[in-house]
């Protein structure tokens, strides 16, 4: 797999990372190298093998749904780069 300009810019869009023209060359080289490395898995026969998402052999644990005083507004908003009243502020979305 070679990463051309178009593929890289599309990936950047999907990942919400702006990619500058001067980065295209080394990103293409690096990502191609990584993909080539992981591509060796294609040679392994995994027919009838179930995937492992997580190695813990345990069902999800239930707990009582109790009221607690975590995540209060002050704490949650404490680190917001921009806030107003009890809201996060972002650039205008709707004209």
């Amino acid at each position, binding site marked *: 797999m070679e990463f051309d300009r178009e593929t890289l810019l599309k*990936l950047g869009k999907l990942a919400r990372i702006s990619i500058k023209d001067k980065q295209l060359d080394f990103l293409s080289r690096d*990502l191609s190298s*990584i993909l080539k490395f992981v591509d060796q898995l294609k040679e392994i026969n995994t027919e009838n093998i179930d995937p492992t998402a997580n190695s813990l052999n345990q069902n999800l644990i239930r707990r009582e749904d109790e009221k607690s005083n975590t995540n209060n507004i002050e704490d949650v908003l404490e680190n917001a780069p921009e806030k107003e009243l009890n809201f996060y502020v972002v650039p205008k979305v709707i004209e």
Partner: protein
Amino acid sequence: MIDKLNIVKAAELLKKKEVSSVQIVKEYLNRINKGKDLNCFNEVSSTNAVKDAEASDERRKNDSLKSEYDGIPIGIKDLFCTKGVTTTASSKILSNFVPSYESTVTQNCEDAGLISLGKLNCDEFAMGSTNKTSFFGPVKNPWKSRGSNAELVPGGSSGGSAAAVAADLCTASLGTDTGGSIRQPASFTGTVGLKPSYGRVSRWGIVAFASSLDQAGPITKTVDDAAILLEIISGHDKNDSTSSIHNKEEYFKNLNSNVKGMKIGIPKEFRSDNLPSSTQKAWDDCRNLLKSNGAEIVDLSLPYTMDALPAYYIIAPAEASSNLARYDGVRYGLREQGSNLIEMYENTRSEGFGDEVKRRILVGTYVLSSGYYDAYYLKAQKVRSLIKNDFNNAFSKVDAILTPSTPSVAFEIANEPNDPVQNYLNDVFTVPVNLAGIPAISIPFTNDENNLPIGLQIITNSFEEQKLLNIAKNIEETIQYKEVPEKWWVK
């Protein structure tokens, strides 16, 4: 008195009142200050640490200790959220982040009376095995090659955690291990590093990298200390649905270094012509040592060992790309302006993440993207099953597996491979363990011909940390590794 102080010794001295917690803390703060060149700490908690030590000394007077380890200072990887103390994951994007809550692991330490000396440098978002991806610059390994002045990497990602313990800037430290990030730096610095079973330790409040692989664990000077610290940090946590319901164990009290009759497996796939002869010799010597101490040596095969690394470099970036989607400049961390919302996201993430983190997010995005999911992510998860099966088969025949921890000793900071895959190969011996979710420990065995530490890795089945520690203790008692680096960093 504080030289080479570990948790066990510190507890003894404090108990006999030969030293106070304030004295210990002040001595370490002094050393940390003198050891600034090593770049181990992102932030030193001088004021808080002294205050906490005073409170501990007060508790000792009043006979109201939180535990027998009350008043002992440790260092904390800058990946654990600490209430009111900047937590950066060594990334620009979190460089101003002050959590309003405490991670379960650090809370458990606080509940035992342990004191934090500060936050330790690491690779950015724990992605790396050199500590060079940190926004705050690389940590330097306290060890240097004999006759050379070149600065060496401490390994990573828990490079600051390992270097601080090796340089005697704290009694012990906390790290995290997603693909070897505790064991590899431990191996590079002559320290003990333990990665617990997946689920043994709560991940709540730890900056997430790859959630199905991440585990926190101790980096220490001795196996005893690893047992103590693991005991303190482990246990079920209702805030982490993947934390295990297995009961907390008394690892330290139950330490038993007898290996008579134990079966130790030597996997042939870890043998390689590229392995330095001194590492091969250390591995052979340890095998013989365990044999003469009464263990039975079993040659075995883990056929999918070499497939673990490529599987890891699909799974870990995939999970990372998802986990790191939260850094969007809206709720916390860095924000870069943009003319609209999307541009603000893109500028923030482009400016806030370093090159390696971006590479992994892009790879992760690619392997999860439409049309590629089955070929990459699902395929890797199936290979993960095969790797897990390898270990299951092995543990039906043996109690534990012995391997080298790393394919090389510490190398020069200036030595930068052009290809990221070259860097990834550092973790070739440690990654299979994370994919299988089992515990492993790296212990220092000897130093090579250039006086650099060689670590060996012991692996056991899930939740058999006690056995792991017992075998490590046996080796430690027999070899009596006492090497310490020259303190070149003290001006």
